[in-house]
C-alpha cells in the first residue's frame, strides 16, 4: 500500500505532463498548419513587382457614385472612375467642363452606384463598355473601357431608384435597369398612391435612351437576362405595394418577374404601349401576347442570377433560407408557374446572391450566417440531400458575391469575391466609420480556401471581373490627338467676342504653351489645353488659383474649361500632376485686369 501511496502522485504528474505535452504538441501542430495555410494563401495572391494581375475587378463605389478598379488576385486598388460625382483629381465634372454639362444635364452631382455590368459579345465580355446604375437619381452611365472614362449618362424616365442593372446576352441588345421604388410613373411629382408603378427599363446600349419599359407589379430589385436573350428577369418584392416595412413583408410570397423580350418588342410594334416620359411603356395586362410572367417565390427575394448554362434563374431568398431555382425552359410552357420551379434548396440564413463556377456549382452569400455556401445545382435539382458541398465564414455579412466571369457563359471557376457589408474588427480602427471588407476566396478545389481580404471605401455593392488579357490590349494609354488638338507652337489667345476670350495652350514637360495671358475682369474665358506628350502616364494638370478649376489632361487628350474671370489680379496656373524635375516650374499667369487698369493701359 505504501508503494501505491508513493507512486500515485508520481503517476498523476506523469499523466498530466504527458497531457500538456500532447496538447502543446497539437497546438503547435495546428499553429504550424495555420502558418502553412497563410503562406499558401499569400503565395496565391502575390503578384511580383512589375507583374500584372489576372483580372480587372470593377466594384461599384456605392455612395461615392464611382466605379473602383482593383487587380485580382492581389486586391490592389488600381484606380477609381468618377461617374456620378465630380472629381477634381481627374478634372471630372468641374464646372465649365463638358463632363460637368453631361452630369448636370442628367441630374444631381451625386449618385449611388450599385451594379456594374460589362458589355458582351457572343455571351462573353467584350471589353467595350461598363454600365453602372445610380439608384438615388434613377440614372445609368456607360463607361468607355478604352479610356476608363464615363462616356454617357442618362436618366431613366418614369421610374424611381434605378437598381438592378444587367445586359441582355449574347450581344448586349439592351441594358436592363430596374425601377425599384413605387412612384407615379410620369414623374409628375404626384402623391397618388394608387398610381404608383415600378418596372423594368430596356435601354439602347450606346445612347442609353430608354427604348421601352415594362410595368411590373411590385418593387423590381435585382435583374439578369437569359443567355439566349429571350428573357429578362427581376426579383420582385413588395408585390403587396406596401409603403412600410410591415406592409412590404405582409404576404408570404413575392415573385420573380420574367419578361418575354420578343413579346414585349412585338407589343411595341403593335402599338400596345402608352407614351410616357418620352418613352414607350408597356402595361403587361393590356397586351395581346403575354409579356410578363410572375413566378411565385418566398417573400422578399433578393438576388436574381441566371446559371451559365442558361437553364435556371435563381432567386436568393433573403428572408427565406432557400434559393429558388426556376427552369427557364418551362416558364412559357407550364399552366401553373409553380411547376417551373426546379428546386428550392435550403442553403442557410439570409441568402442574398448566387454565383457560379461553371462546374455545376453555385455559391450563395448568406448575409445572416456570414458565410458563403457552395452547393451543387444538379444534386439540388435531383433531390439529393447532400447538395451542400462546403461553407466558408466571411467577415462579415456578405451582400453580393461574384465568381470570376460568373455572369458569362464561361465562368473561370478560380476566384470568388465576397463583398461584405461590415468589417467590424477586420481592419485597424479609423474612427466610427469603417471601410467595407472584400474577401477573395479560391474556389478551384472542392473546398473553398480564404486567400485575402482588402478594404474599400463605402460601399461596393457588386463586382464584375474581366480578364486582363481580354481588356488590357484595348486600353488606350496615349491617345491620337483629335481634330480639336492644338499643335505644337500654336498656343495663343484669341478675342472671340466683346467680352470673351479663348486661350489655346499646349502642355508638355515642363511648360504650358503660354507663360501668361491677359483678360479683363468679367470676361468669359475658355481655356483649351492639349497634352502633346507621346509617352504613357504623362498626365498634366491645370489648376487655376482661386478659381476652383483643376483639369487632368492625359497624353494626346484635349480638355477645355469655361469660366468668368471675375477675380482681378494675378492668378497662377500650374501643373497638378507631378510630371518632371521641372514640375514646380511648370506654370504661368492669368492676368485679370480691372476696368481701371485697362484705362491706364490705353
Amino acid at each position, binding site marked *: 500500500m505504501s508503494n501505491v501511496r508513493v507512486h500515485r502522485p508520481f503517476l498523476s504528474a506523469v499523466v498530466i505532463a504527458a497531457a500538456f505535452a500532447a496538447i502543446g504538441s497539437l497546438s503547435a501542430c495546428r499553429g504550424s498548419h495555420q502558418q502553412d495555410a497563410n503562406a499558401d494563401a499569400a503565395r496565391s495572391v502575390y503578384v511580383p513587382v512589375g507583374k500584372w494581375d489576372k483580372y480587372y475587378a470593377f466594384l461599384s463605389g456605392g455612395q461615392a457614385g464611382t466605379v473602383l478598379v482593383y487587380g485580382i488576385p492581389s486586391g490592389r486598388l488600381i484606380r477609381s472612375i468618377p461617374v456620378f460625382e465630380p472629381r477634381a483629381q481627374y478634372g471630372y465634372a468641374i464646372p465649365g467642363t463638358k463632363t460637368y454639362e453631361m452630369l448636370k444635364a442628367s441630374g444631381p452631382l451625386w449618385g449611388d452606384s450599385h451594379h456594374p455590368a460589362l458589355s458582351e459579345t457572343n455571351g462573353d465580355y467584350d471589353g467595350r463598355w461598363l454600365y453602372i446604375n445610380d439608384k438615388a437619381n434613377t440614372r445609368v452611365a456607360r463607361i468607355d473601357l478604352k479610356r476608363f472614362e464615363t462616356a454617357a449618362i442618362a436618366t431613366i424616365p418614369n421610374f424611381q431608384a434605378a437598381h438592378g442593372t444587367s445586359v441582355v446576352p449574347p450581344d448586349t441588345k439592351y441594358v436592363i435597369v430596374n425601377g425599384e421604388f413605387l412612384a407615379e410613373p410620369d414623374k409628375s411629382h404626384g402623391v397618388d398612391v394608387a398610381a404608383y408603378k415600378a418596372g423594368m427599363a430596356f435601354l439602347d446600349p450606346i445612347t442609353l435612351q430608354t427604348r421601352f419599359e415594362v410595368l411590373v407589379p411590385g418593387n423590381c430589385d435585382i435583374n439578369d437576362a437569359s443567355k439566349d436573350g429571350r428573357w429578362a428577369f427581376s426579383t420582385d418584392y413588395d408585390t403587396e405595394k406596401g409603403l412600410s416595412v410591415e406592409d412590404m413583408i405582409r404576404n408570404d410570397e413575392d415573385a420573380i418577374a420574367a419578361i418575354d423580350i420578343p413579346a414585349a418588342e412585338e407589343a411595341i410594334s403593335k402599338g400596345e404601349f402608352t407614351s410616357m416620359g418620352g418613352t414607350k411603356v408597356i402595361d403587361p395586362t393590356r397586351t395581346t401576347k403575354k409579356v410578363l410572367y410572375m413566378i411565385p417565390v418566398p417573400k422578399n427575394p433578393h438576388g436574381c442570377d441566371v446559371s451559365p448554362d442558361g437553364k435556371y434563374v435563381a432567386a436568393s431568398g433573403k428572408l427565406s433560407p432557400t434559393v429558388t431555382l426556376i427552369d427557364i425552359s418551362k416558364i412559357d410552357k407550364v399552366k401553373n408557374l409553380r411547376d417551373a420551379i426546379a428546386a428550392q434548396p435550403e442553403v442557410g440564413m439570409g441568402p442574398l446572391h448566387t454565383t457560379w463556377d461553371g462546374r455545376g456549382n453555385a455559391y450563395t452569400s448568406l448575409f445572416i450566417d456570414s458565410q458563403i455556401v457552395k452547393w451543387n445545382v444538379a444534386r439540388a435539382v435531383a433531390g439529393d440531400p447532400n447538395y451542400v458541398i462546403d461553407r466558408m465564414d466571411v467577415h462579415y455579412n456578405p451582400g453580393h458575391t461574384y465568381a470570376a466571369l460568373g455572369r458569362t457563359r464561361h465562368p473561370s471557376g478560380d476566384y470568388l469575391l465576397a463583398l461584405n457589408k461590415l468589417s467590424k474588427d477586420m481592419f485597424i480602427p479609423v474612427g466610427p466609420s469603417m471601410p467595407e471588407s472584400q474577401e477573395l476566396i479560391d474556389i478551384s478545389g472542392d473546398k473553398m480556401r480564404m486567400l485575402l481580404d482588402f478594404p474599400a471605401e463605402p460601399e461596393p455593392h457588386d463586382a464584375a471581373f474581366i480578364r486582363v488579357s481580354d481588356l488590357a490590349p484595348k486600353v488606350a494609354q496615349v491617345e491620337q490627338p483629335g481634330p480639336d488638338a492644338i499643335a505644337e507652337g500654336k498656343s495663343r489667345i484669341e478675342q472671340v467676342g466683346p467680352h470673351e476670350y479663348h486661350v489655346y495652350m499646349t502642355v*508638355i*514637360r*515642363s511648360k504650358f504653351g503660354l507663360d501668361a495671358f491677359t483678360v479683363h475682369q468679367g470676361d468669359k474665358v475658355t481655356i483649351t489645353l492639349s497634352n*502633346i*506628350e*507621346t*509617352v*504613357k502616364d504623362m498626365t498634366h494638370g491645370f489648376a487655376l488659383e482661386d478659381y476652383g478649376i483643376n483639369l487632368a489632361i492625359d497624353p494626346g487628350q484635349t480638355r477645355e474649361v469655361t469660366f468668368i474671370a471675375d477675380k482681378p489680379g494675378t492668378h497662377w496656373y500650374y501643373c497638378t500632376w507631378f510630371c518632371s*524635375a*521641372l514640375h514646380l516650374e511648370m506654370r504661368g499667369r492669368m492676368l485679370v485686369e480691372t476696368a481701371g487698369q485697362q484705362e491706364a493701359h490705353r
Partner: protein
Amino acid sequence: MNAPSQASCAGTVKLLLIAAAALLLACNFLPVWSTAMESPQYHGEDTIVVKVYPGRVEGNLREVETLNQYIGVKLPLDAPELKGMTYAMAAFLVLVIGAVFLPPAIQKHALVGIFALMTISGAAGLGLLQYRLYELGHVRTRAIIGGVANFTPPVVGSMHLANFHVYTRLMSGGWAFAAVVLLTGIAVYLTHHDAPPMPSVPGRHHAASCQ
C-alpha cells in the same frame, strides 16, 4: 574555252552589280543606324528608339526633345548629311547601273572608281556620324541639370547617360550599304582577275578568276 568563261564572268559581274543596285535602292527605305535608350521608366515597348534613314530621322523625337531639356545636347536632326545620304545613294545607284552597260575594258576601271568612292563615302559617313555624336555630347546649349558630363556616344556600342543606357548599332540600311560595297569589291576583283589566256595546261585553271 575562254569565250564562254569571259561571258560567264561578265554575267556574274552584271548580276553582282544588279544586286548592288537593288540593295542601293532598298537603302533609301531602310534605317541605316539607330540608337535605343533604356531606363527603368523606359523599357520594353517604352524604350526610346531613334532611327536614322537616308534623308530623315524617325522615332519618338518629341520625347527625346522633351528629355533633352535636362541635358541640352545638340540634336543633329537637320544635319545636311542626312539629305546628302539620299543624294549619295542616288548617285551610287546611277553609277552602278551605268557600270552594268559599260564595255568590259572601261567597266573594270569604272568599277575601281565606284568601289573607291563608295568605300571612302562609307568611311566618311561613319566618321561624320562619330563627329556628330561627339558634337551632340559636347556642344550643349541649355543643360539645366547637373551631374551629366560631356560625352560621346559610340557609333556602335553602348554607354550610360544620365539615367539611360544608350545602345547604338548599324541597322539594315547600313548593312545593306556594306553589302553593296562588298558586291562592288567582288565585281572589281572578278574583272581584274580576268587574265589573258594562258598556255593550256590540262586540269589547271585559276579557281578565283573568270577564265
